[in-house]
C-alpha cells in the first residue's frame, strides 16, 4: 500500500521559540483509519494543524521535516489550498457556523467539483450517512446538540469531497452512545467511499475500536505505534489509556517510575 499522507520527522515551533512537537513521523494509507492517541498537551492537535495548514494562525511553523500528500509537499501550506487538495479538517471546537441553518452549513463548503448535479449528489451522500441531518435541515446550527453538531461538521467536510478526513477529538463532550454511533458512521464512510481518516483522540477505547493503525504521543513525540491488536494488547496502553489494571495492583510509586522512564527512552 502506498501512503496517501506521509508526515516525515516534523518539528513544529510556536512563536519562533517554543518547540511543540519533534520528530513526528506517521503515515496514512488509502482507505485506512489511523488514530493518534495521547493526553492533553501531547502535541496531537499541533500535528493535525501542521497537516491541515492551520499553524500560521498561532504564529507556529513546521521548521523541520516534510509533509507529503499524494507525492506533493504541503508543509506550511495554506489551509484553503490543502483543503482543495483533498485533506479536510473537522476542528475540535467551533466546527459549524452557528448562525446558518443545517442546509446552509452544508451548502457553504466549496466542493472540488462544482457543478450543481455534483453538488446535489454530494448533498444526498451526506444525508445518506447522516439521515438525522435531513430532518434538521432548516434548524439553526447554533441550536444543535453536541452530537448533531459533530455530524454536521463531518457532513460539511464530506461536501468538500475529501480523500483524507482529519477529525480532531471526535468524542469531545459527547455521550458514549453518541460516540459509538459516530465511530460506526465514520467506518461506514471509509468502507463505502474509501476515504482515509486520521483521528486524533483522547479516548483510546473509542479510537482503537475503529482504527487500523495507531500512534501514541507523549510530550510532543511519538512513543509507540502499531496496529490495533498490538496496541490493544500492549500493557502500557491497557494501563494508561484503556484503564485496565493488568492483574495485580501496582503501587503508585511504580507507575510514576515507569512514566518517568518512558519519557526518557520512549
Amino acid at each position: 500500500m502506498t501512503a496517501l499522507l506521509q508526515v516525515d520527522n516534523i518539528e513544529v515551533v510556536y512563536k519562533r521559540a517554543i518547540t511543540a512537537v519533534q520528530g513526528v513521523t506517521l503515515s496514512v494509507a488509502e482507505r485506512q483509519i489511523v488514530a493518534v492517541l495521547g493526553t492533553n498537551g501531547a502535541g496531537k492537535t499541533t500535528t493535525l494543524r501542521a497537516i491541515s495548514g492551520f499553524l500560521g494562525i498561532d504564529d507556529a511553523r513546521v521548521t523541520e521535516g516534510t509533509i507529503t500528500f499524494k507525492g506533493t509537499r504541503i508543509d506550511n501550506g495554506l489551509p484553503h489550498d490543502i483543503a482543495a487538495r483533498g485533506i479536510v479538517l473537522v476542528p475540535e471546537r467551533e466546527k459549524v457556523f452557528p448562525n446558518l441553518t443545517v442546509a446552509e452549513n452544508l451548502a457553504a463548503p466549496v466542493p472540488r467539483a462544482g457543478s450543481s448535479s455534483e453538488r446535489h449528489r454530494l448533498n444526498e451522500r451526506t444525508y445518506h450517512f447522516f439521515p438525522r441531518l435531513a430532518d434538521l435541515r432548516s434548524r439553526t446550527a447554533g441550536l444543535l446538540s453536541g452530537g448533531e453538531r459533530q455530524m454536521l461538521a463531518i457532513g460539511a467536510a464530506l461536501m468538500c469531497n475529501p480523500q483524507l478526513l482529519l477529525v480532531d477529538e471526535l468524542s469531545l463532550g459527547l455521550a458514549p452512545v453518541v460516540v459509538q454511533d459516530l465511530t460506526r458512521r465514520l467506518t461506514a464512510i471509509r468502507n463505502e467511499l474509501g476515504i482515509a481518516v486520521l483521528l486524533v483522540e483522547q479516548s483510546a477505547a473509542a479510537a482503537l475500536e475503529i482504527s487500523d493503525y495507531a500512534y501514541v504521543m507523549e510530550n510532543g513525540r511519538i512513543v509507540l505505534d502499531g496496529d490495533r491488536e498490538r496496541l490493544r494488547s500492549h500493557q502500557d496502553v491497557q494501563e494508561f489509556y484503556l484503564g485496565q489494571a493488568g492483574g495485580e495492583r501496582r503501587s503508585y510509586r511504580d507507575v510514576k517510575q515507569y512514566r518517568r522512564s518512558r519519557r526518557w527512552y520512549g
Partner: protein
Amino acid sequence: MFRPAPRASGYLHTGYGEDIALLQTRTERASLAVFAILLAVFPFLASPFALDLACQVFLASVGALSLMLLTGYAGQISLGHAGLIAAGAFTTGILAREISAPFWITLPASALTGIVLGFIFGLPSLRLRGLYLAVSTLALHFVVIYLGGEYETKRGFSTGIVVDPPRFAGIKLTDGRAWYFVLLAAALVSLLICVNLLRSRSGRAWQALHVRETVAEALGISVARYKLLAFVISSSMTSVAGCLFAYYRGFVSIEAFDLFLSIQYVAMIIVGGMGSLLGALLGAAFITVFPYLIEALLRLLPNVQKLAGEIFAVNYAAFGVVMILFLIFEPLGLVGIWHRLQNYFLLWPFRYKPLAGARK
C-alpha cells in the same frame, strides 16, 4: 512585571515580601539603576529640542499607560482619549483663568473631571461591545470639544486660554529641565500605579473580563463594577495628563485635541504592543518621536525648501504606512520584538526551547 516568568533562574522566595517585590533579581536592579542614571543625566546633556521631545514622550506615556489599562487590559475600546485630555486641560485652564486656582487645586480638579466623565461614558460599556463601544466613546470627544469651544467663544478667548506656569514653593516652573523632572515623575507615578493595579485584584479582574465576561462573572467578579472602575481610573489619569499638558504648553485650545490625537493614542498602544505596560511606554516614545524622525529624514533629501509644504502630508502618510506594517508584520508590537530579542539571548546557543523531558 514586564517579562513572562521566570525572572530568576528558580523560585527562590522565602517570604511574602520577596514575592511582591517589584524588582526580584540583581540584574533587574542593576539595569534599572543604569537606566535611572541615564534618565537623570539626560537633561544636562541634551539640547532644548531633545528636552522638549522627552517631555512630550513623558506626557504621552501617562496617556498611553491609562489607555493601555482600559483597552489593553480591560479590553474596552476607547476613542475618546483626546476628549479626556482636553477635559483635563480645560478644567485646568478654566480654573486657572477664572479663579486663578493654583496647581494643587487644578490637578485634583482635573482628576475629578476625569472620574465623572469616565463614569458617565463608562456606563454604555455595560451594554455595548467592540465597535459599538468605540462609537459611544467617540461621543465623549465631541461633547468635550463642543463644551470647550463654547467656553472659548463665549468668554472671548477665541484663540485659546493662556495658563500661567505653576508655582512650587514660590518658584515659577518655567525651566525646561525642571519640567523634565516633573513630567518624568508624573510618568513614573503613573507607571507605578498601573503596575500595582495590574498585579492586584482589580487588574486580574480586568484581564479576566477582557478574555471572557461570562467566565469572569461566573467566578464572582462584578463585571459592571470593574468595567466602570477601569473607565474611571483610566479617565482620571488621562485628565491629569491633560492638566500637565496645559501647564507645560501654557496654552489651552480645542485645536490641539482633534480626533487624530485619539487615533495617535490608540496607535501608541497598538504599535507598542497590546496588553503590556512596557508596550505603552515604547509606543508613546515611538509615536511621539516618529513625526520628527520623518522630518529629519526629509531634510536629508535635496531641494528641501520645495518640500516644506508637503511635510505634513508626508508625515500623515508615513504614519499610516507604519501602522499597517505593524499590524501585518508585528501584531505584538514593539514589545513583541523586545521579547523575541530576550528569548534569543535566553535560549542562546539554542534556537528553540526544547521539549519537556527531552534528552539534549
